[in-house]
Structures are given as structure tokens and as C-alpha cells.
């Protein structure tokens, strides 16, 4: 009797997880493997992967030798300076929002608005906001500074992406910090205050160390999503003046190669990206595992 009940439970469970398992195999693991195979072949994407001629690590070597790829890596890394900036700002914001002020909820909503906004609408908005005749330059002119065509400049175009990403992501990381701050027992601060610790020391000796898991999480997810930056870089420049090399990220480079029919080559780029993401994730697990011991 008991055994029959258990087998019924088991069969139901397998049926329930079947769609998710199938979905993961078909739409994630299968393509991941195929792109690994493709990365060692001269594949145009038109024929079957295994009909394409095998060419060893040639794709990887040529990717790593291509100065345009190097530029794409530099551009991608550049946009990541937004990560520490966003983290610092959101921790400060979270502390302001954690004082129990009236209207805190309204502020949380306001700061979260850019997070929910679609990346396309937001990027087009920033593109026009920063245009030579746009409101940002008008604002500068109001104070007597002369603006410029920010998005046509090698460095400022990237800075524009950083600013936009920080602006858009601030609300999310602030919420995670608020959650973290609420987990710090109030008594720690009270005890330290009785010992005469200044606000400065409370921040650096209690808040910062105890909030480290959130900071760490934001850093890791920031690097992982930053490495995959695409839409912002593709759409920030106005159509007329698109010298995309200034802002071409690794994924934009990958997409370009795919568009030219170098799918095997693009797969090598894809796997280099995947390896970086796996390494960062592995590091995260290793560090978190060590902490738990």
C-alpha cells in the first residue's frame, strides 16, 4: 500500500517537472553545446553545424588577435565603472530611506520608476536628452558652460552609457540594500553609540561589514550583466552619426560577426563570454561557500 502511494507520488512529481526539464534541455543546454561545437568550426549558419569544416582553435586565436575585439572588451569594461558608482550611491540612498522618514514609500516608488521603464524607450530618451541641442546642453549653457556633442565623443559616449545604466539601476540596488539594512539588529548601533562611536565609525564598522553580502551580490550580478551589455550600446547613438566603434560592446561585436555569416567565429566570442560569466559565478560560489564554513 505504502509503496504504491510512493510510486504514485514519484510519477506525479516527474510529470510535473517534465516541462521545465525539457525546456531547460532544449532551449538552454542544447544550444550551449551546439555553440561550443560551432566555435571550433568554420560555420556560416546555413549548413548543419557538423557539416561545417573543423578548424580547431583558429576561431579563438583570431578573435583574441582581432584589435576590434580588444576594443570591444575595453569598451565593455569601461561601462562597468558604473557598478561601484551605482553601489555607492544606492547604499547611501538606502540609508536615507531607512531612517523611518515620512514619505519613504513615495521615494522608493520614484527611485524605482526608471527600473521598470523599458530599455528601448529609456535609451532613446537619453539619446535625445544628450543631443547637441538637447536639454542637458541647455542646462549647462544656463550656467555659462558650453556643452558638446557628447555622443560623438570617444569617451563621453561611453560615460553617457554609464550614467544611463546607473540612473536606471539605482532603484533596484537600493531596494536590496534596504532589505539588507533592515536585517542589521538595531542593538548593534545602540551598543556602539553608548561606547561613543561616531556616525562615521558606525557606518564603516557596522553597516559596511554587515551589508557585505548585498554588496557582493550586486558586484557579481553587475559584472555578469555588464559583460552582456547590448541594447544600451546599440541604441544610444543617433542613427545619422553612428560610429559604433566608440561604444561597441562584446555582444554587439558578436552580433555583427553573426550578421556577416561568421557564425562559428561568433560562437567562439560567445564561449569566451560564457567562460568569463562561469568564472565569475564560480568565484561567487567559492567565496560564499568559504564563508559558510
Amino acid at each position, binding site marked *: 500500500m505504502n509503496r504504491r502511494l510512493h510510486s504514485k507520488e*514519484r510519477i506525479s512529481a516527474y510529470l510535473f517537472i517534465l516541462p521545465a526539464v525539457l525546456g531547460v534541455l532544449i532551449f538552454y543546454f542544447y544550444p550551449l553545446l551546439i555553440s561550443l561545437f560551432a566555435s571550433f568550426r568554420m560555420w556560416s549558419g546555413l549548413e548543419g553545424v557538423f557539416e561545417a569544416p573543423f578548424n580547431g582553435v583558429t576561431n579563438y586565436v583570431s578573435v583574441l588577435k582581432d584589435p576590434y575585439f580588444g576594443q570591444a572588451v575595453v569598451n565593455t569594461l569601461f561601462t562597468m565603472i558604473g557598478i561601484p558608482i551605482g553601489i555607492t550611491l544606492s547604499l547611501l540612498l538606502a540609508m536615507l530611506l531607512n531612517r523611518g522618514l515620512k514619505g519613504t514609500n513615495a521615494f522608493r516608488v520614484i527611485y524605482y520608476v526608471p527600473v521598470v521603464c523599458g530599455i528601448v524607450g529609456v535609451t532613446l530618451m537619453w539619446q535625445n536628452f544628450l543631443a547637441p541641442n538637447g536639454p542637458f546642453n541647455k542646462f549647462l549653457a544656463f550656467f555659462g558652460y558650453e556643452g558638446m556633442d557628447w555622443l560623438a565623443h570617444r569617451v563621453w559616449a561611453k560615460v553617457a552609457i554609464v550614467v544611463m545604466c546607473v540612473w536606471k539601476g539605482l532603484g533596484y540596488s537600493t531596494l536590496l540594500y534596504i532589505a539588507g539594512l533592515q536585517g542589521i539588529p538595531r542593538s548593534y548601533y545602540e551598543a556602539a553609540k553608548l561606547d561613543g562611536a561616531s556616525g562615521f565609525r558606525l557606518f564603516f564598522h557596522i553597516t559596511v561589514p554587515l551589508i557585505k553580502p548585498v554588496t557582493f551580490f550586486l558586484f557579481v550580478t553587475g559584472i555578469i550583466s555588464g559583460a552582456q551589455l547590448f541594447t544600451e550600446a546599440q541604441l544610444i547613438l543617433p542613427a545619422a552619426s553612428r560610429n559604433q566603434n566608440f561604444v561597441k560592446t562584446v555582444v554587439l561585436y558578436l552580433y555583427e560577426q553573426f550578421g556577416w555569416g561568421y557564425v562559428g567565429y561568433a560562437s567562439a566570442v560567445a564561449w569566451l563570454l*560564457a567562460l568569463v560569466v562561469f568564472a565569475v559565478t564560480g568565484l561567487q560560489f567559492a567565496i560564499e561557500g568559504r564563508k559558510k564554513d
Partner: protein
Amino acid sequence: MEAVEKRIIKTAKKPRNVSRSKRAGDIAAYVLLALGSVLMLVPLLWMLGASLQPSFSHLLVSPFYPSGEWRWLNYVDIFTNAYISLPKAFGLSVLVAVPAVLVGSYISALTAFAFGKLHFRFKNIIFLLLLGVLMIPYPAIMLPLYNLYAKFGWIGTPLPLIIPKMFGNVAMVFFLKQYLQNVSDSVIDSAKIDGCGYFRIYNSIILPLIVPALAAQVILWFMGVWNEYLPAYMYDVQTLPIVVAKYNSDVAMRNEIPKVMAASVVSLIPVLAVFAFFQRGIIESVILSGVKE
């Protein structure tokens, strides 16, 4: 003795000092939060204003707010203009997001139920396999997926954005499985004694119990799918973000900028409406999943 006396005096004095410095801190916090809110909202408000201008040259007149003329017809224009076919794109975005998210969420919750409450062999290994998906960067799998969908004849149709999601969402499975830990097994056991099958237990007991957690997850996922760009771009699906981005790059003349801004506003309105309606639940849910992280 003297030291003790000093200390008593110090602590006696404290409340007034603390409350005074706290009030000063609160005022400073309000000022900073208000300034930040302005920075968060000004670009979006500018976009709204720009979308109502008769022409680009009206945007050039004065520093921030160009002219007093509001041209609501811009919105009528972009909806009737055959060039951008906004109504079609809007309909397609709804067609993609609603069934994909509803079916996918139902399947995700079913999967979470199996992993959280049922007993079967290899449970942990299979669960780890599912979680592995969270590490895979999308660009690493999108090239073989393109080929797969081309084989299915799906390129240019909305199917690549709908079907894979219907197999469930791993992040949601993870979150709901955690949430199910709060649901006691006794509910399930008593239903089993009454002779309920597991599928019925899921539909009539588990699903209603997790609705609060599920609803927030459904909304967050819906907003994500609505804003999705790279997959739609990759598989040539003319959803709202794609059409709006294309409209922007097609208008060579800057005169059309107000209409581009209007189209961007239209693409943001659904998510902003959903956010306005469910903001409390959304923010609580993000904080909650942050705590769990």
C-alpha cells in the same frame, strides 16, 4: 566617582542632543532624497514634454521647456501612421507577453510544488541542473537558437518569444520553492487522506495558497517580457520595443524627434501603469527576494 558623574550627565543630556541632531539629519535626508528624485524624474518628464512638441525646432527655443504649444496630435499621428504601425506592434507585444507569462508561471509553480513538496529520486541533482540555467548568458546560446527556430520556421513569427517561456522560468521556480517552505505539509497530507490526486492538490490547495507570492512574480516577469529587446531583435519579431527603436533609426530628419519620443512614451505606458497599480506589491516582492538571496 567623577567619571561616573560625568557619564550620568552625558546620558542625561543626550536625548535633547540626539533629537536635535536627528532632526537636522532628517532635513538633510529629505533634501538629498528630493534632489535625487528630481534627477530620476526630469529625463522622463522631459521626454513627455518633448513628445508633445509640434516640431524639433520647438525643442530648441528655451532651456528646458521649449514652447507652450502642446500637440497631442503627435500621439494620434504615430498610431495612424502606416510607417511605424504602432497598433500592430502593441497587439503583438500583448500577444507575446500575456500567454507566455501566464502559462509559464503556471508551469513554474507546478515545478516548484514538485521540488518543494514531493519526494522523488534525483531531486537535488535535477534541481541543480535547472539552476545551472541561471548562469548561462543569453548571447552564448542565441546563435544556435536562431538556427533551431529557423528550422522550425519560427523566424519572423512571435513563437520564439512565446514557446520557450511556456516551459517555465527557473528563477521563479527557485523563488516559489523557497516560498513553499512556509506552507505546512499537513495541508497536503490531509488532502492525500481525502484521496486527492497530486494535480488536484496543486490546483485547489497549493496554487490558491501561493497566489500572493505568485502574483508579484507574474507582474515582474510580465514587465521584463514587455521590455525584452535582444531576443525580439535576434529573431525578427516586430514587438513594441523593436518597432520604436526602428522608427528612431529610420527618421533621418530630426523634425520627427517629438514623435519618436511619443512612441517611446507609448512603449513605457503599459509597464508604468502596471507599476503604478501594483507598486507596493512589486517593491515588497523585490525586497523579499533580496532578503532570500
